[in-house]
C-alpha cells in the first residue's frame, strides 16, 4: 500500500512538473484529479451552486497562474485545498457582513433547497420520513450557518472531507492545536443547537 502511495505521489509530482513546463494535458489531468473534491468542498461549505462554481473556477485559475511558484514545500493536495478553503472563507466572511439569504427558497410546493437541483439524488424515503428528515436537515443547515467562518471551515474539512487536524492546520496556515480548538468550538455549538433533535 505504501509502495502504491509512493508511486501515486511520484506520478503526481511528474504531472506537476510537466504542467509547470507548460504541458496543458498534464494540467488537465491534475484538474481532473482534484476538481470533484474541490467542487464538493465548495458546495458543502457555501451551500450555493453559483458560489461553488465561482470558487471552483477561481481555485483552478489560481493554480494555473501560480503553478510555477509551487515548490513542493507541502503536498499539492494541501496547496490546492489551501487556495480553495481561503476562497470559501472569503465568501463566508462576505456573507456574514451581507447577511445573505438561505439557500432554501419557498415555492408553491413548499421549501426547496436550491442545492438539490445540482446534487446527486438520494433514494426516496416515505413521505412521513421525508417530512421529518426535511425538518432535521433544515435545523442542521441553520446550525452550520451559525458557525463562524473559521469554525465552519475546520468542521467541513474534518467532517466532510475527512482531513486530519494536522492537515487542516497546514491547509489553513495554523497549528494543529488551533485547528483542534476550532473544531471543538464548532462541535459544541452544533451540540447545543441540535441536542434536542437526537
Amino acid at each position: 500500500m505504501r509502495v502504491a502511495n509512493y508511486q501515486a505521489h511520484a506520478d503526481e509530482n511528474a504531472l506537476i512538473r510537466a504542467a509547470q513546463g507548460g504541458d496543458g494535458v498534464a494540467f488537465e489531468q491534475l484538474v481532473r484529479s482534484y476538481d470533484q473534491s474541490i467542487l464538493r468542498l465548495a458546495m458543502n461549505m457555501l451551500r450555493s451552486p453559483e458560489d461553488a462554481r465561482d470558487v471552483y473556477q477561481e481555485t483552478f485559475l489560481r493554480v494555473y497562474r501560480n503553478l510555477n511558484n509551487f515548490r513542493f514545500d507541502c503536498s499539492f493536495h494541501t496547496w490546492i485545498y489551501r487556495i480553495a478553503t481561503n476562497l470559501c472563507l472569503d465568501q463566508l466572511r462576505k456573507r456574514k457582513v451581507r447577511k445573505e439569504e438561505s439557500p432554501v427558497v419557498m415555492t408553491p410546493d413548499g421549501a426547496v433547497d436550491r442545492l438539490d437541483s445540482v446534487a446527486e439524488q438520494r433514494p426516496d424515503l416515505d413521505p412521513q420520513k421525508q417530512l421529518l428528515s426535511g425538518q432535521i436537515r433544515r435545523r442542521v443547515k441553520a446550525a452550520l450557518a451559525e458557525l463562524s467562518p473559521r469554525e465552519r471551515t475546520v468542521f467541513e474539512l474534518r467532517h466532510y472531507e475527512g482531513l486530519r487536524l494536522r492537515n487542516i492546520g497546514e491547509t489553513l496556515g495554523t497549528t494543529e492545536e488551533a485547528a483542534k480548538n476550532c473544531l471543538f468550538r464548532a462541535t459544541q455549538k452544533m451540540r447545543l443547537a441540535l441536542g434536542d433533535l437526537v
Partner: protein
Amino acid sequence: MSNPMNSDAMRVNPGEMRVNCDAVRDQLALLLYGELNFDEEERADQHIDACTACRSALEQQKALHAAVDDIAVTPSPALLASCRENLFETLDLQAQSLADRRVASSAGTHAMTHETTHGTTHGTTTESWWSQVLSSFEGRWNASWLRPAGAFALLAIGFMAARVVPYVDKGGGANYSAMDLANLGATQVRNVQEDANGRVNIVLNETKQRTVSGNMQDAMIRNLLMAAAKGSSDPGLRAETVTILVNGAVSSDVRDALVFALENDQNTVVRWRAMEGLKSYAHDPSVQTALASVLQHDVNPGMRTQAIDLLTSGTGSAMDRQVIGVLQEMVSREDDTREDNTYIRQRAQRMLEAVKASAGVY
C-alpha cells in the same frame, strides 16, 4: 465548556463523577473523529464503559454526526462537467489573449488596454472583451469545429441582444439600449430571477475596454505600464510590459519598476527582461543591490550567471560596499553545489581583486 486539551479533567475519580461526565461529553465529538491523543482516548473509553449516561450521550453524538452526514452534498456529474467546461474555456481564452498580446506587441503597438468591470455580482474572473471575441472564433484547444460555431454564436448574441435589450427594465435598474450592448461586446447572463409581479431581473457580467495611447514620455502611459508590470496576474502581459518599460529606463521611476520586477517577479522571463533592460544602469546603486540579490536568491542559474556578469563588467570600480560583501560571500560558499557556482566564484574573485577587496567576508 471545558478545555478539550485539559487531560487532568479527564481523570476518573468517583468523587468527581459529575466533572468527569462533563469533560467526557465535551470530548465526544473529538473521540468520534479520532482526534484525541492516546491517553485522552483511553480515559474517555474507560469512563464511557463505566457510565451509562455518557454511553447514551455518545449515541446521541453519533446520531448528530449522522444528521450532519445527511445534508452532505455531492455535486452532480452534470454540474462538474459544466464547471470543467467553463474552466477550460477560460484557460483557452487566457492562452489566446496572451498570444494576441504577443502578436500586437511584435507589431510595435504600444497601446495600453484598460479594462473595467461592472454589473458583476458573483464573478471572480473577468476576461478582456477582445480576447473573448477572438476566442469565440478560435475555439478551444483541439476543438477547431467550434470556430464556426463561435462565429455563429456571436452573430446570434448580437441578433438577440438587439431584440431583448430594449425591454430590460428602464424604471430603476440598469438602463441598456441595444447600442450599449453592442458596444459592450461581451455580455454574459449570470443569473435570472422573476419576482411576484412578473418583473424579470437579469444579472449580467459585463466587460468593456478602452484604449489609451501615448509614448513613454507620457506620465499616464508610464504609470499604467508600471502598474501592469507590478500588479498584473498575467505573466505574459508583465513580460511584454517590462519589455516596453525598458525603453523608458532613463527615468528613475521606470528603473525602480524594473528593479522591482527583477527582484520580485515570479516569472523568469519577466525577471530576465527586466535585467536586460537594466544592463546599461549597472553602475546605479539600486541596480547593483538588485543584481546582488539575484546572485544570492534567484532560483534560475541563467539569471545568476547574467547577474554576476553585469556586476563584474558594468560597475567598474564604483562598487557598492554591500555588493562587495555579497561577492565575498559567494566566493566563500564552497559548499554551494549549484552548477553555476564555480563560474560565479571565479568571476566574483576576479572582481574583488579588481576593486582591491579581500576575498574573505568582512
